């Protein structure tokens, strides 16, 4: 097993350095293309109603400090202020629904980003086939 390990190390010294190919969608590092490609007049920015200081004062967990943090904060306030029977009767249902709607919009945007990336990569493949762009697989790697 030591021989296999050594050979593997020789072939692929650092697995962290696996760069995603320029022809496959990489969901971890995010989009690689220019965000304004395809939008001649530009795109609208996503709005953040809360500031960083407000999020810190609210002591939100890191993974909740996203673009839906304002809805989440309203929901949390409702949950802490209302009692058990109020929650059972549905006091915080409206805030919960608002938060879920915001998360749904966020998910849809994530789907759209992936799909945009995929279509731009296919366009790049077509351009490579026509010869308008260089083929990344032909480039030699520098050590």
């Amino acid at each position, binding site marked *: 097993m030591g021989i296999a390990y050594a050979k593997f190390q020789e072939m692929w010294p650092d697995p962290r350095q696996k760069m995603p190919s320029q022809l496959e*969608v990489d969901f971890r590092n995010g989009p690689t293309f220019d965000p304004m490609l395809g939008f001649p*007049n530009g795109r*609208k*920015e*996503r709005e953040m109603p809360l500031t*960083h200081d407000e999020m810190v004062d609210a002591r939100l967990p890191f993974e909740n400090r*996203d*673009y839906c943090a304002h809805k989440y904060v309203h929901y949390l306030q409702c949950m802490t202020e209302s009692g058990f029977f109020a929650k059972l009767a549905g006091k915080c249902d409206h805030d919960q629904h608002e938060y879920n709607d915001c998360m749904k919009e966020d998910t849809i945007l994530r789907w759209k980003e*992936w799909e945009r990336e995929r279509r731009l990569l296919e366009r790049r493949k077509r351009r490579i086939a026509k010869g308008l762009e260089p083929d990344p697989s032909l480039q030699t790697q520098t050590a």
Partner: protein
Amino acid sequence: MAALRRSWLLVNALKNKHALHLREISSTQSLLAGAYHPDWKPGDYPQTQKEHEEAAKKYNLLPEDYRPLPDDGYGAGDYPALPNIGEEQKSPWTDWDDPRMRRNWGDPVHIDFDILVPDRADPAKRYRYPLWSMYAMFLFVYSMFFFTWLLSMRYPKVMPMMDKVYPYEEYKVRTAWAEGGVIIPPTNKRLKHYTFEPLD
């Protein structure tokens, strides 16, 4: 090498005894199973009435009950054709000579007696439900699954998406191993992210 020598010895031993006859079997394990005693070999298919009566007497059957197996090339000479009743179907309460086989001394033995047992070709096997009912139930359930699959072909089962984005760079998901051993502390910069609505 050892198997060849073993089979040669066994064949020679059997031949020299002059007690057993061998069939042309190549495997050592099957040689003894294929060997037979000439006294217990069934006779030829009875052609005349006299042969019929002699064979019936040999098998302890009345001549009107004796019926040899059909002579179609697969038969066993004058061996009788007995009803397909296994030993498990016979009564356990009668005083058999051999209670395990449920057979009295001198009873004729079915030619396939070794498979007419409950865990093999059981002649008393019955299905609980009629066959058409079983087929119909299977088709009903399978058609439900098939119909569901047909409906599902229109919709994707996997919807890949990009990672979640955060407005302030203060959250790192990856471990130290992924970052090269050291996690660089994040700067609390405000990052720009866009929707898909164009500015008009």
